[in-house]
């Protein structure tokens, strides 16, 4: 086989893996959008916050230590203990649930029945706020996150492809783990929404708020639940991205990566988020591989958006989105 084709295959595989990570972030958006009609821009910052909290708990960092030191003097930074990864993850989930409750109580509850754009703005405000809190609480320096996920070249794949084509594909172990976890997460979410009482209530709310309210479903509870779920998805995404490139501000920018995925797949569809993520992942990697050198590189910044834009002109509701019916 010609080299060029092999490279393209390797790029495609890596694109698929990257696409899964995009889909993971997009999933958090879809969950909240379906249940409450809120387009949650803060999803990316929630991932950052979750990852930073996880690192902070694992390392035994003192929250707000920088601020405390600045006001009272002194040099407190760490409690001096280390929490095992699993316990830290559980604690972080609790923090995210608390955050979900606070968001619902302090912000979203007061904005019920506002226009969608107002809600969107509120989540942008929330994103700024959380980013500030995260920096203040855990410090803004780049942190390494190590929860024991395997990293580096996967030798089995390298070996198999080398035997088959005479060229070993480079595929990161972490990407494989991320793919598996994302798959599990999606299955778990589907099972949850299909077979549990809360899941069914969730779908009812997504279908029709007022009808759900009239059969006795508590909207407040569902919204807290949805925000918690989104927080949990954010934590998983944060762990994956954090393990890949360190916990830092750029983590919050994955929200911007997830947006074209959502447009492509439709804001209301979980399978759409996954298919959209895969298309974007493969598309942008292949485009960069084939045309990037000719165009000057770094096309990944905009390719996804332009692809989604062209796509939307032909199908305004995305691939799997509900058909938009407008009445006067």
């Amino acid at each position: 086989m010609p080299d060029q084709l092999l490279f393209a295959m390797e790029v495609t595989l890596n694109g698929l893996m990257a696409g899964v990570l995009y889909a993971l972030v997009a999933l958090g958006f879809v969950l909240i959008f379906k249940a409450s009609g809120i387009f949650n821009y803060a999803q990316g910052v929630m991932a950052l916050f979750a990852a930073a909290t996880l690192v902070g708990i694992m390392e035994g960092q003192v929250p707000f230590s920088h601020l405390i030191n600045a006001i009272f003097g002194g040099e407190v930074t760490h409690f001096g203990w280390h929490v095992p990864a699993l316990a830290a993850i559980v604690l972080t989930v609790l923090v995210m649930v608390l955050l979900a409750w606070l968001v619902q109580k302090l912000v979203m509850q007061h904005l019920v029945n506002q226009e969608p754009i107002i809600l969107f703005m509120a989540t942008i405000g929330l994103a700024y706020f959380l980013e500030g809190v995260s920096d203040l609480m855990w410090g803004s320096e780049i942190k390494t996150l190590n929860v024991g996920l395997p990293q580096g070249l996967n030798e089995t794949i390298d070996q198999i492809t080398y035997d088959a084509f005479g060229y070993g594909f480079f595929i990161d172990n972490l990407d494989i783990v991320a793919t598996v976890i994302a798959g599990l997460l999606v299955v778990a979410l589907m099972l949850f929404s299909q077979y549990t009482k809360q899941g069914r209530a969730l779908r009812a709310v997504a279908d029709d708020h007022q009808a759900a309210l009239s059969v006795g479903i508590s909207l407040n509870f569902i919204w807290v639940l949805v925000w918690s779920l989104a927080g949990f998805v954010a934590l998983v995404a944060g762990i994956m991205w954090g393990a890949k490139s360190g916990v830092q501000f750029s983590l919050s920018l994955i929200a911007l990566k997830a947006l074209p995925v959502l447009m492509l797949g439709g804001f209301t569809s979980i399978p759409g988020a996954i298919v959209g993520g895969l298309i974007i992942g493969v598309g942008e990697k292949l485009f960069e591989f084939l045309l990037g050198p000719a165009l000057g590189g770094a096309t990944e910044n905009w390719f996804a958006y332009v692809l989604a834009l062209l796509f939307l002109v032909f199908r305004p509701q995305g691939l799997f989105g509900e058909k938009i019916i407008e009445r006067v």
Partner: protein
Amino acid sequence: MIYREAGDFHTSYREDNQTFPIRFDRYRYYAVLAIAFVVIPFFINDYWANALLLPFLIYSIAAIGLNILTGYCGQVSLGTGGFMAVGAYACYKLMTAFPEVSMFIHVILAGGITAGVGMLFGLPSLRIKGFYLAVATLAAQFFLVWLFNRVPWFYNYSASGQISAPERTVFGIAVTGPNTESWATYLFCLIFLVASALIARNLTRGTLGRTWMAIRDMDIAAEIIGVNPLRAKLTAFGISSFFVGVSGALFFAVYLGAVEVGEAFGIQKSFLILFMVIIGGLGSIFGSFAGAAFLVLLPVLLKVVGADMLGWPTDIVAHFQLIIVGAMIVLFLVLEPHGLAQLWRVAKEKLRLWPFPH
């Protein structure tokens, strides 16, 4: 007592139709103009001009532009930063290609070029609505910034990839470059702001503004009563981008002087302008001013209080700034979704009856 329409008789159609129908409003407006044009230039110094006045003037123009698109026509745009970059780079290319032409013409032409680009990126708005459109405008943001970063023709093949403004004059007075007087740059921007506000105000009161608002309130209904959505949306994109382009050109040439595109016109800028419009008030020209003033003043104020008075490290102040800006936005949306302009409107209503409200 003073703020009322009683005794203010309008005897002609023109008088009845003027921008400020209430006498007190009108005098206040003339007074503000007089202070801005005649008094401030004599007292201005470099600190005031660079820290507060220039950013306020320039951001106000951008906010007016975005307000036309988002507030009046209902099309949410997150591509403002990208369009500002178009204005800046168009201005740069014009400045370097035609050195002897007045800066006024360069800035206006830069706005015109941006209007063209804006209409191009506005085309999808005919098919795409709401959030999908907001995200689609991000395509403009990222693509344009990438373009100006990667194509050397736009920055005249300079080694650093930056663009920096050479010295250009208006009637023999330097307004760009390193040797400018603060009063000259201030007046230059002020003239553009006043002109923009006047044009925007009158556009939004006329046929065009009404078609925009019809499209905003319900596009299908508007179409049925005979508003052409293609024309309404594209003119909104074009005119909005014109103002945004002018502000981008001023931001680069007069205020910063040298620009790195990703830093000066990134996605953060788009959000900043959008916040100004939201906090100020959607669909209000006064709101654009108020929002711009608020978000220009806030960081300066926080820095003065936090870093200079309390002596905190600057990174903590920066974090607090994020928190406060975020909390402010949420608070505004919860308490007053229609922004500062609405507070102003309520205050005016109260003033009319003051001091005898019954």
